[in-house]
């Protein structure tokens, strides 16, 4: 009996501590890191800060947040979402627009804000590669700053939220690592610096726009959805052309997915051009769903009228001869 108690005294704490260790190990929080190649920058130098997601064994499918920085120290030059793990942006990372609210406007002058939210359909647990073992963090997007004046500061992530890929949208435990920096008067050599950013020579990838309609949006009108990916500089914008001619015209209009079609009869060819930040283009074509009848071509009517006039003139000539 005594031996049993002795065993129990040893086994129970060992098991409990093992359990606690395993619980602690398995419930690590997902991490959002703001990282850069350097913490010291010279005044007027450009540097890049990447927002990275380390899933830490969880599967994550949605993310949102706000990045803030001092406008007195930094100026945002570019927001790059090329090679992002986010496939669909609910709000593409962008600078918050200045408001008419006076107090807010004063704050806007001092503090820059980048707002973003997006999803990774099918979830993200880390990037795999043939060249390393295990999973590595994935990039959400990059910010390219120019330093303005001497000083110290941080680029902060605020209101960060990541949701688990569990079908319920459960918030994951989240650890945040902000980026602290120091701006010096002298120029600093930034290790592995990619500035100036090399040219992106690749076009966005092939994509397939889709026509849809639903009574809950756009009064049931047909609309077009599309999403192109660009692993280099990232998608800059889209342009659209609707034409009843098969031949592509010259008039493009800038548009976003979702785009309400002008031709609700779906008899037009729709050209969608994805343009990346380096100006490379990829064009996708959507064939008309319904055939255009011959009498719907203006050219057909012009030919008929001309043919009619010619026939009339011939008839008159023949009549005069007689």
């Amino acid at each position, binding site marked *: 009996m005594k031996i*049993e*108690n002795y065993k*129990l005294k040893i*086994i*129970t704490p060992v*098991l409990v501590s*093992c*359990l606690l260790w*395993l619980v602690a190990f*398995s419930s690590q929080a997902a991490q959002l890191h703001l990282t850069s190649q350097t913490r010291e920058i010279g005044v007027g130098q450009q540097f890049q800060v990447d927002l990275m997601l380390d899933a830490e*064994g969880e*599967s994550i*499918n*949605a993310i949102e947040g706000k990045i803030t920085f001092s406008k007195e120290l930094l100026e945002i030059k570019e927001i790059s979402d*090329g090679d992002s*793990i986010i*496939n*669909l942006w*609910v709000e593409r990372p962008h600078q918050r627009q200045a408001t008419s609210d006076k107090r807010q406007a004063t704050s806007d002058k001092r503090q820059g804000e980048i707002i973003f939210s997006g*999803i*990774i*359909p*099918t*979830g*993200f647990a880390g*990037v*795999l*590669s*043939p*060249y390393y073992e295990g*999973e*590595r963090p*994935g*990039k959400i997007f990059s910010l390219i700053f120019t330093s303005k004046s001497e000083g110290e500061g941080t680029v902060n992530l605020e209101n960060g939220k990541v*949701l688990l*890929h569990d*079908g*319920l*949208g459960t918030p994951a435990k989240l650890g945040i690592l902000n980026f602290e920096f120091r701006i010096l008067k002298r120029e600093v050599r930034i290790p*592995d*610096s*990619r500035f*100036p950013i*090399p*040219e*992106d020579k*690749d076009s966005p*990838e092939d*994509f397939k726009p*889709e026509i*849809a309609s*639903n009574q*809950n*949006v756009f009064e049931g009108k047909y609309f077009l*959805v599309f*999403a192109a*990916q660009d*692993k*280099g500089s990232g998608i800059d914008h889209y342009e659209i052309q609707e034409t009843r001619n098969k031949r592509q015209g010259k008039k493009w209009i800038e548009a976003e997915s*979702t785009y309400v079609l002008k031709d609700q009869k779906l008899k037009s060819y729709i050209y969608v051009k994805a343009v990346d930040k380096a100006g490379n283009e990829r064009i996708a074509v959507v064939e008309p769903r319904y055939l255009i009848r011959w009498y719907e071509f203006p050219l057909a009517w012009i030919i008929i009228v001309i043919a009619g006039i010619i026939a009339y003139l011939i008839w008159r000539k023949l009549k005069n001869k007689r």
Partner: protein
Amino acid sequence: MKKQEVGFLFSVFVLFLFSNSIVFAVTVNITATVNPTCGNGVVETGEQCDAGGSNGVCPAACSVACAANSCGGGSSGGGGGGGGSVYIATSVIFSGRAYPKSAVTLLKDAQIAATAIAGADANFQVSVSGLLGGNYIFSLYSEDKKGVRSSLLTFPVSVTSGATTNVSGVFISPTIAVDKSEVKRGDDIAIFGQSAPQSDIVISVNSEEEFFGKTISDKDGIYLYNFDSSFVDYGTHYAKSKASIGNQAVSSFSSVISFKVGTKNIFAQLPNKIEKGDLNSDGRVNLVDFSIAAYWHKRPLSTTFKPTEIERLNGDGKIDLIDFSIMAFYWTG
């Protein structure tokens, strides 16, 4: 009593270890195939560049597959005498097991990129080419004989420009269905689905206690397990299954299916209809549904859309990140 405590602690400990092993047991092999002369520092046929030991990821100008990194500054490589541009294909090949003669769908960055039909032995190979170097999120799913979809297997892969990346040993999880949505306590409920032929199938029924059952799939990959409902209490219970072949290949768990233990038998329909996240009721969750949800993001919902939001999303009367997360979970592409 104390012996029971030790037993309980030990069983929890073992279960905990087991549940972790489930997560880590599901592995795939990732390899990359590149030109064998790549890396010798000499630009040869089929190479855009070759910086020898300096080949690598950005900021290196030349990739490990001897293709110019699209980020990489400073063109290296020999000044092109005469030959025109060199085309080096960048592709990814997935191979593994699904179900006999089933359709396997490959999603690339959330959109359908390719489909393939598995052989009678359930082996499949599906590939996508024309890629650039960078991070891609690939997902695979299959559909069984009865049109029931498997859960998605996701592979975020860093693709090297100019190389063929092989992801092998993929084992798509079994499909799962039950013959009754409600079973009279004491009666059997049939849990069935499809996997690779002659696989060991483990069925887990989760209630207050977790029950494990074992069966073997037949030559067509079909499995059936009759679960005695008298083991569990009245109420809702959840079942899932996973497959293994000779302790080498282990699938992840299937999606979870629920059933109720009650006072009567109600026969169930096959779970081949997607409802959550499917806002236009076309049986798919894709960019169209995302666009419909995005339309209502930060807008008051219309009276006609409110019932859809309640039925297909989280039902809180607004569209926010949680709704998009639900949609992402049920994504089909």
